[in-house]
């Protein structure tokens, strides 16, 4: 059964219910006896503020035609150690202001949590971010948090997720139990958002399977351990799919040729495994998921291999080569269904931590490919300069990458860290 959220009375998803709920959690946390006796001298501020400039090499195929875009970002963090044993409070806020895209101008509570450490267990209460997995080009098993897609479609920017997490630390590994009382929608670029303005996701009007919509209580379980050279993880999730389904039934095309889609959030069961073997300079990687509840049940997986040449001819330079094969049983709206990625990482290990990463993901069925280059170095003690280029080419008719047609861009970011 699907129920539809009414557009009227819905707060903007940018500073909406998530932030209000987070506020309630913070109020709860601050009321804990530990926090009452706070010593301001132990409080630690850190974070970064930055400016970003993007240059799009073409006018674009979607609704947005601008080629230059500026934006500002801030991510301050407040940390307070409650006890020497590791109990702590942490608040991480995020704010992005974008010149053109109203959807990319957004704020989020990335973390707002109380963390308790005991001898054989740990407890997290509040908003947190969780990362599971081992592969580089895709993050299949990582499911607790919603992606902040408008920040970067690489799946590494995560929206804060309200949770109760209990971790049991035992000889046979760590068992994590998650209760997730509230769902965060995926963020998407708006009609003026590049890249991706050819596809507009109607984030004001999502479709939920659950009648409780965002208030469906989700559950997850994860076991992780290491045995010699092997790092192992197995996970199970029941609840609202973080990844929406796009159904032609809920789509429309405007006169300007822009496709507008309503995201459909089904209730799913998902089992996942992740494995890494570390042998000498070789890393062997595997991630696989089986998901049921979103149309037909399906399997998706990624296997990868990474080799690093360390300290090349005694100059301290490392070159790492990464290759990953991506498979997804779904065919509709999936670009990584039968793809091979090749990447190279160059690390100078110099005083300024200079790094380069370049990768290409090639579709083995239809010749479509996307690629990116990232480079960064520190300037002085507190600044970091990053340059990034992302794009696609050879995209076949019908491949979802088509929505990024003409949106290739180069980005420069300068950030100040404190």
């Amino acid at each position, binding site marked *: 059964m699907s129920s539809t959220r009414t557009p009227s009375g819905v707060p903007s998803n940018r500073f909406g219910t998530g932030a209000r709920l987070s506020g309630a959690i913070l109020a709860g946390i601050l009321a804990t006896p530990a926090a009452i006796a706070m010593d301001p001298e132990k409080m*630690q501020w*850190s974070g*970064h503020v930055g400016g970003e400039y993007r240059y799009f090499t073409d006018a674009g195929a979607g609704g947005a035609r601008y080629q230059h875009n500026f934006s500002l970002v801030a991510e301050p963090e407040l*940390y307070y*150690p409650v006890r020497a044993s*590791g109990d*702590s409070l942490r608040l991480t806020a995020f704010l992005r202001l974008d010149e053109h895209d109203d959807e990319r101008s957004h704020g989020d509570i990335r973390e707002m949590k109380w*963390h308790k*450490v005991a*001898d054989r267990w*740990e407890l997290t209460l509040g908003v947190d*971010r*969780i*990362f599971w997995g*081992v592969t580089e080009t895709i993050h299949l098993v990582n499911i607790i948090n919603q992606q902040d897609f408008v920040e970067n479609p690489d799946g*590494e920017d*995560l929206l804060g997720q309200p949770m109760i997490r209990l*971790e049991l*630390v035992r000889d046979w590994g*760590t068992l994590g139990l998650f209760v997730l009382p509230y769902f965060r929608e995926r963020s998407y670029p708006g009609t003026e958002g590049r890249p991706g303005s050819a596809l507009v996701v109607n984030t004001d009007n999502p479709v939920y399977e659950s009648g409780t919509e965002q208030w469906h209580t989700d559950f997850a379980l994860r076991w*992780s351990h*290491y045995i010699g050279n092997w*790092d192992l993880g197995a996970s199970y999730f029941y609840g609202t799919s973080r990844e929406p389904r796009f159904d032609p039934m809920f789509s429309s095309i405007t006169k300007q040729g822009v496709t507008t889609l309503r995201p459909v959030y089904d209730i799913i069961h998902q089992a996942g495994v992740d494995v*890494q073997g*570390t042998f*000498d*300079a*070789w*890393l062997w990687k595997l991630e696989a998921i089986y998901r049921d509840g979103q149309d037909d049940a399906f399997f998706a997986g990624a296997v990868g291999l990474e080799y*690093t040449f*360390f*300290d090349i001819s*005694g100059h*301290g330079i*490392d070159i790492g080569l990464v290759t990953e094969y991506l498979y997804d049983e779904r065919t509709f709206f999936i670009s990584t269904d039968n793809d091979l990625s090749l990447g190279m990482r160059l690390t100078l*290990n*110099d*005083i*300024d*931590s200079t790094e380069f990463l370049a990768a290409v993901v090639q579709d083995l069925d239809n010749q479509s490919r996307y690629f990116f280059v990232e480079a960064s170095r*520190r300037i002085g*003690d*507190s600044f*970091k300069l990053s340059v990034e280029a992302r794009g696609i080419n050879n995209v076949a008719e019908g491949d979802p990458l088509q929505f990024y047609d003409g949106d290739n861009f180069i980005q420069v970011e300068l*950030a100040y*860290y*404190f």
Partner: protein
Amino acid sequence: MFAKKYMYLITLAMSSPALAQAVHDRDAVEKGIAIAAEADRRDSGYVDSEESFTMVLRDSKGRERFRTLRTKTLERTDDGDWSLTIFDEPADVKGTAMLTYSHGLEPDDQWLYLPALKRVKRISSKNRSGPFMGSEFAFEDLSDFELEKYSYRYLRDEPCGEHSCFVSEWVPAYEHSGYTRIEVWHDREEYREQKIEFYDKVGKHLKTLVLNDYSLYRERFWRPLKMEMTNHKTGKATLLHFNNIELGAGLTEREFDQNSLRRAK
């Protein structure tokens, strides 16, 4: 019959200069091992340690950059030590942490935590000779000492500053070292390392480490508060200043697992 022949051979050999050299070499090896073992014995039994330090990276023109770090170590009697290193500065790597279970001659188990991604990554520990945080210290210079990791030979006695030192040659027995050998100066009174010279793959003198300002902890353990590594090839230097050292703080194994890596602060 056999014993007689054997005695004859020994008598013959004893009179040859080659064997005299061999006996001398064997003595030098034994003395080299004895010095390293005594230094190791004196530094064993601290159980655990917590240190915070500043790293000053100085280039050949004298320009400086600063890093601040903390290291926790848990002594293991049956295997190599466990350590957790937390990066505080520069600010862009704040919260990054590295967990190492060392295994002597075998490759170490090593995990890195990347706070921006909230990701724990198992990493290859093959990189022994590469630079640590862009400094003149290689990973192997900062790694856990185990007796089996080198072969030893005593070279000579020599004055070293206000002390008198044993000088020994150590040859790495582990794989992927950046050195053919190192020379180590131990003072005769307390077996503290006073100076180490590092020789690169072609046998050239690459770096010198000088250890200073030794302080006594728990009435038994000597720790240097200053170390200076100079690279003779590049003219660069790295200084370590220890601000705080605490031994026997009562750290537990739980402070050296992947959970502790994620919440390192």
